[in-house]
């Protein structure tokens, strides 16, 4: 029951993160939705700690996930600031490379 609750909440958070990402035209809102998605990943990782002998592995995966996602988000924050300095705009319409509109 506990695993089902955790997985259910994790999936709902992931779907809300996806919905926020695809419905926003704002890079800051995109950043917030990404952090929400990473939070969902942290929650989905929790049942791994209950498997006998895999707690240290789960902790290692958690540390890697937290540091990697933290670095990625900091780079995204720096990119948003640089984009704003260049274009005076933080909407996704001002991004000309990548995605399906390039």
């Amino acid at each position: 029951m506990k695993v089902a609750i955790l997985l259910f909440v994790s999936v709902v958070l992931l779907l809300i993160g996806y919905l926020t990402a695809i419905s926003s035209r704002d890079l800051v809102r995109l950043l917030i939705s990404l952090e929400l998605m990473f939070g969902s990943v942290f929650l989905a990782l929790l049942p791994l700690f209950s498997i006998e002998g895999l707690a240290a592995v789960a902790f290692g995966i958690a540390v890697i996930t937290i540091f990697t996602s933290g670095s990625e988000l900091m780079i995204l924050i720096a990119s948003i600031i640089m984009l704003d300095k260049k274009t005076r705009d933080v909407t996704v319409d001002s991004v000309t490379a990548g995605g399906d509109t390039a």
Partner: protein
Amino acid sequence: MTTSLLVIIGFAAILSACGVLFSRDNLYASVCMSITLILIAAAYAVFDIQPVFILITFIFVGAVGAVTVAIAATYRQQPKLSVDKVWIAPALITAASVGYAIYAYVNYGMEVSSNSQEMLMTFTSDYMLLAMFIISLSVLLMMAVVKFVRREGI
């Protein structure tokens, strides 16, 4: 007791995540996001996995989340919410497959047996090299960003 706590934390996390989705202001959305992440960390605290609770709270929410709130306070734009109806089909397929997976796990219990001290000892002895690599990678990424910012003259 643990199940009740998980239900309460999960419900509160979903509510605050809905706040991210429906909030008209980036600042309130980022605050709701921080609350959601703290609630996720609280789920780790329920199972007495204190190291991950501290990592999520201090590094993810404390560092990255705080910067996000600051950025969102600077760019307080009102987003235009518009979702293409094409997304309904893949969302329904995903919800159905995930729903079946959760149904399969509905009777599974969860007991975290190992204590935090033992887990940390095993991690520091077996995964120290890995931790050094990931810290080095993070520092290199940050240095690359700083170099890029300086080159752009911002």
